[in-house]
């Protein structure tokens, strides 16, 4: 009999612009502990394998994997890090379970980005160092210079005026939004409506940190930072940790928890070269095709009762809906205008508030989206509960300047009714 993989427990911290009260270890512990309690298991005995999704530069450590085991219950147990989005972690967990070697896997991802004082430079450092990164400007300093601050005043480099000439790499989003608006005849006003919707949705999500009552004019009048990207088109950074416990369905039955099945997933990466890369979120198209095939979904239109897509910039929500094959190019904005993306619409989208409403939690974004889908499928979403959803799609992107994305399909049933 084919094994089936399902979610048996989820846990998360609140999402906050800063988390000065807890260390990164403490808030990872909080999310994991909640997930294990939710599943009704003891991680020291019942979890066979542990996965964290993290990237060293975000964390500020070399070999971050080494700093993980104690706070997630994984000391002297099989444990590894996936350097990617949380949905890529879920995919690894699924595959581990399908081998039959393990039955229960914990997947954790988080953002403690308020600890990172050089966010813009870390993002910039992700660009090709020979042809593309230097365009933003470079720090010219002596080679092998050793400590970069005076010994007597151990202040960080942050704030030195001669270090401030580099252009923030979000300019890439300015270029891409320009492309999206032109190629689909979508307007800046329609993108502003995404911001209004998601920040309004966030009011009904107690975890969200960036809820706000806005009208389109507020967004339109916010300052152009990377034209046509305006200040309010950008999702602000947030801290938060999420843990999923995945298991073979027999485990769920023994525990007596209601399983939410992981029916399909996919992930894909564009070429890193901006010089050769498409700007139509091809990574999302390929990732979703893989996921649809795995879940046996022939036509994604009408297949989902709720979706959560990456909206780290306002236009990204519309671009991703189209890339996922849920709307033709240029039609996502019309769906938004017709109310189809609202809670009671045909395709409820980012009812959680998305990254615009909750905050951008970097590699944890995929799990944040998956968390909303699982919460909705369980019927635990409170005021923002969509009526009786059965199948949901979570999609994420690794952010500027990456061309990598992932998608996951969850449902209340072992097989998605196609």
């Amino acid at each position: 009999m084919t094994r089936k993989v399902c979610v048996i427990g989820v846990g998360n911290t609140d999402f906050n612009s800063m988390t000065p009260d807890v260390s990164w270890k403490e808030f990872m512990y909080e999310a994991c502990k909640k997930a294990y309690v939710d599943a009704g298991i003891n991680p020291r005995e019942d979890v066979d394998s542990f996965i964290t999704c993290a990237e060293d530069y975000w964390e500020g450590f070399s070999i971050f994997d080494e700093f993980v085991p104690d706070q997630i219950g994984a000391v002297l147990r099989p444990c590894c890090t996936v350097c990617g989005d949380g949905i890529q972690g879920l995919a690894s967990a699924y595959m581990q379970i399908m081998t039959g070697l393990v039955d229960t896997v914990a997947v954790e991802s988080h953002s403690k980005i308020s600890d990172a004082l050089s966010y813009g430079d870390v993002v910039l450092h992700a660009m090709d160092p020979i042809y593309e990164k230097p365009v933003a400007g470079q720090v010219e300093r002596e080679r092998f210079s050793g400590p970069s601050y005076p010994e007597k005043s151990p202040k960080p480099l942050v704030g030195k005026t001669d270090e401030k000439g580099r252009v923030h790499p979000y300019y890439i989003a300015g270029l891409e939004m320009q492309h999206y608006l032109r190629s689909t005849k979508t307007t800046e006003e329609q993108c502003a409506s995404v911001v209004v919707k998601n920040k309004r949705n966030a009011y009904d999500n107690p975890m969200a940190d960036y809820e706000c009552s806005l009208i389109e004019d507020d967004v339109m009048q916010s300052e152009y930072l990377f034209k046509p990207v305006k200040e309010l088109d950008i999702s602000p950074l947030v801290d938060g940790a999420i843990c999923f416990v995945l298991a073979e369905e027999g485990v769920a039955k023994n525990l007596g928890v209601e399983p939410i099945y992981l029916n399909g997933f996919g992930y894909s990466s564009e070429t890193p070269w901006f010089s050769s890369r498409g700007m139509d979120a091809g990574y999302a198209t390929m990732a979703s095709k893989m996921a649809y095939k795995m879940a046996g979904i022939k036509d994604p239109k009408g297949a989902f009762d709720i979706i959560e897509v990456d909206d780290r910039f306002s236009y990204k929500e519309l671009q991703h809906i189209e890339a996922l094959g849920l709307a033709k190019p240029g039609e996502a904005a019309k769906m938004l205008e017709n109310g189809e993306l609202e809670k009671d619409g045909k395709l409820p989208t980012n009812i959680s508030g998305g990254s615009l409403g909750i905050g951008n939690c970097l590699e944890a974004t995929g799990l944040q989206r998956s968390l909303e889908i699982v919460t909705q499928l369980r019927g635990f979403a409170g005021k923002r509960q969509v009526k009786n959803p059965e199948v949901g799609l979570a999609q994420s992107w690794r952010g500027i300047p990456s061309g990598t994305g992932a998608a996951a399909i969850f449902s209340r049933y072992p097989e998605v009714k196609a």
Partner: protein
Amino acid sequence: MMTFFEKQTNPLDQAHHMGNLMVDNMYTSGTAGKKFFTHLKENDTFLASRCKKCGTTFFPPRLYCEDCFIEIPEEDWKEVPAQGTVRLFTIATLNTFGEKLDEPKVIGMIDIEGTDGAMLGYIETDETNKDLIGSKVKAVLREKKDREGTVKDIRYFQVL
């Protein structure tokens, strides 16, 4: 006021320990990069490489085709003019710390003439409100004596 403007955003105000990563790297230009930049030091043109099988002309030039996954031999490199067309542009106003730059920078994605590739670069223009898309631009290079064999030798793109 809007709630999210009132968030505390300076983590340095909180109890913390400082730390940093003192890392310097060099990045080998590679065979293709060396050839491209050596040429650029002595000439006012660019080099590109063309895949025989699919016909894609790579700029910046590469030793292999990412689609066909085959090598591109030396005879399939060609010289192209250091100019192109603005595919996309944006006006960047922030530095990497999220603070205002002294001067906004116009940055473009320039499709390089005679190739299927493009390049990111500054565009020098007095008319920042103008729609630059489709404009022909020329690379303004450093004086030959000052060239160091890096992408910095391309100072900016000038609208023709």
